[in-house]
């Protein structure tokens, strides 16, 4: 992740083969990065070196940044933890390793300790008594290890908190302070940098993107038998602007093709942008509000330039949370257009009869993974269920599910932070066990970060399942009305 790659090889292959290639490529990429990372750690941990070199002025600056990120809501949360410890079992990290450092209350303590020390009278006068912490190198070591390395910002602890503290947002505020100290783990930071510098998080050149869209358009035409079928690019005045995760054109063209086929079948007015199509926003994960705002603003600009009415976000959990809920706050403005998940759009097609589905085309047992940023933090809870129950014969729920779901372990930037890869896989055991219990052959995950993690869990825990997006399952069940040409 975070580096440009050639697309040519993908183009030469059939759509089905690319799925396998994607899995291998994901592993290869991660293995390469892990190797690189291990080599680096032998030579010296760059974050540790950075921490050792921090000056008092830099620490003061970071503390100022931390203060700026704290609003009255966060301050109220930071004043309210009672250390009841009931959050422990809500965290997949703690369930996997049983370490104190993985308990959400402990992670939060690292943040509240600093808050108390510098921003409360008790913390200033009787610091040890109330658990206040100096903001120094030692604390920062703990912050990096726990707030980056043991948290996927999934928010499950918040729903289980006896008070109701919004723990992931407090941890993100602390990550923001680490951004100002260049203490973001290199893999995550390089993904943010690539998105800022190259316009998408995988550094796909514009020409390659356009070529991929055209290639998929050809595939769509032959599949639906309509030479006028289109995957429109830069169509001004289209109703929907559709965005994708750059992993789709790179490794998962099936997902893009599936969405295109659904739009075609519904006779939708829609378009891609040739410039800004990346739904992801790793600035959300790193805590870099400035970068996050820059990345999200590109989609806003495309919406304005193309005069579209609805920004439609592909199946990407954090992309949805970022662009639907957080970006208006980062940019400090109310949008003049709607922001919707592709799942809301497809559910609407199904309910209004704009597309016809034959669930018997998906005969295997299908289960659904709820991406945290889409469901618990995003509010897209029932749409995917409504769709899948009409697209597959045998749909079974995981337990727990919906807003109570367990994180797969791939969120919070974990997939990009290869230095914590071992922990991520271990923490994913909870999800692997959930999947195994369902007996499903197909796991549907409306999020490409989750898909990457689930693919790794699939291999690591030998689950023997197939992993798909919602649109892929729907596209497979799609009954085209006639085989002829249609106006699109």
């Amino acid at each position: 992740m975070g580096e440009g790659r050639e697309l040519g090889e993908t183009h030469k292959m059939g759509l089905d083969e690319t799925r396998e290639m994607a899995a291998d490529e994901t592993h290869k990429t991660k293995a390469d990065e892990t190797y690189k990372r291990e080599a680096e750690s032998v030579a010296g941990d760059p974050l540790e070196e950075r921490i050792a070199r921090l000056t008092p002025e830099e620490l003061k600056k970071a503390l100022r940044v931390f203060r700026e990120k704290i609003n009255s809501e966060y301050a109220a949360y930071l004043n309210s933890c009672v250390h009841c410890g009931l959050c422990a079992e809500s965290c997949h990290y703690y369930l996997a390793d049983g370490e104190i450092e993985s308990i959400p209350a402990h992670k939060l303590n690292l943040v509240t300790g600093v808050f108390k020390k510098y921003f409360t009278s008790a913390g200033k006068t009787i610091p040890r008594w109330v658990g206040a912490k100096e903001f120094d190198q030692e604390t920062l070591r703990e912050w990096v290890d726990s707030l980056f390395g043991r948290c996927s910002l999934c928010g499950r602890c918040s729903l289980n908190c006896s008070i109701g503290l919004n723990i992931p947002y407090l941890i993100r505020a602390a990550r923001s302070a680490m951004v100002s100290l260049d203490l973001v783990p290199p893999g995550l930071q390089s993904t943010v940098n690539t998105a800022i510098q190259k316009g998408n998080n995988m550094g796909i050149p514009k020409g390659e993107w356009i070529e991929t869209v055209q290639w998929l358009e050809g595939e769509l035409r032959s599949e639906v038998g309509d030479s006028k079928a289109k995957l429109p690019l830069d169509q001004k005045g289209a109703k929907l602007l559709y965005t994708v995760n750059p992993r789709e054109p790179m490794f998962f063209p099936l997902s893009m093709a599936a969405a295109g086929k659904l739009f075609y079948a519904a006779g939708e007015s829609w378009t891609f942008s040739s410039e800004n199509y990346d739904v992801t926003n790793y600035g959300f994960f790193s805590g870099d509000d400035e970068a996050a705002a820059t990345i999200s603003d590109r989609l806003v600009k495309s919406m304005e330039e193309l005069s579209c009415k609805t920004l439609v976000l592909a199946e990407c959990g954090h992309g949805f949370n970022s662009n639907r809920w957080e970006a208006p706050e980062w940019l400090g403005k109310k949008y003049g257009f709607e922001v919707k998940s592709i799942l809301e759009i497809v559910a609407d097609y199904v309910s209004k009869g704009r597309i016809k589905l034959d669930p018997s085309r998906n005969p295997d047992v299908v289960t659904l993974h709820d991406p945290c940023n889409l469901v618990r933090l995003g509010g897209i809870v029932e749409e995917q269920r409504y769709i899948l129950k009409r697209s597959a014969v045998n749909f079974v729920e995981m337990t727990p599910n919906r807003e109570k779901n367990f994180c797969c372990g791939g969120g919070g930037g974990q997939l990009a932070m290869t230095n914590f890869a071992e922990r991520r896989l271990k923490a994913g055991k909870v999800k692997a066990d959930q999947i195994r219990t369902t007996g499903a052959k197909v796991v549907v995950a409306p999020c490409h970060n989750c898909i990457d993690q689930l693919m790794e869990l699939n291999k690591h825990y030998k689950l023997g399942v197939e992993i798909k997006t919602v649109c892929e399952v729907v596209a497979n069940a799609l009954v085209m009305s006639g085989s002829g040409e249609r106006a699109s």
Partner: protein
Amino acid sequence: MPLLLRYGVAISFFICVAILSSEIVSTLAFGKRSRCAQPKSSGLRGVLYVFGRGMMPWEKESATKHPLTYFAGVAYHAGIFAALFYLFCVALFMGLGALTLSLLRLLLILGFFSGSGLLMRRALSSRMRKLSSPDDYASNLIVDAVLVLASIDTYFGSATHFGSVTHLASTTWLLLLVSIIMFLYIPFGKIRHCFFFFYVRVLVGQFYGRRGVLPPRPHEA
């Protein structure tokens, strides 16, 4: 002296409220969080949920996995509210009927044993010890002391002397004294969460309510 102690309770209570109010003001000074994103659902519905059904043990996995702790917490807090009510009745010379007194006594005793149980859980579990600061123990101890003294006082103390300005039972004496210490301690320790709790619940209710996460939507059959 009895009157002085009663004044002491009132004064320490007002000091507590004044300091906590200033804490609230300094919290608000951190600035309002912007709300530019269009809500999907109603923040108010979320707030109503978190203060209602959302407090029920079956709604939270953390409560269903730890039912004893959950119910101890509920009993502890019910006891605290009973103690505060009792304390103000004593301080303000308000008489209590036998039935009310019995109910208060029950809540106070349950609250004391629950609070002591939670304190033991904190002290005996290595996980809880590592999460705790001295303040966690002190806050629990001081509240437990108020609960036990109030419980005893319902038997021996102010129940018979509510109207007396000049005489106080020794248990009432102790209760008022410890209460003064508690009120003066509240703004500096974790007991101040009592002030922030309701605000935080409103915030979290609004957060999930606006996003359409809470209350959970009815499931399709």
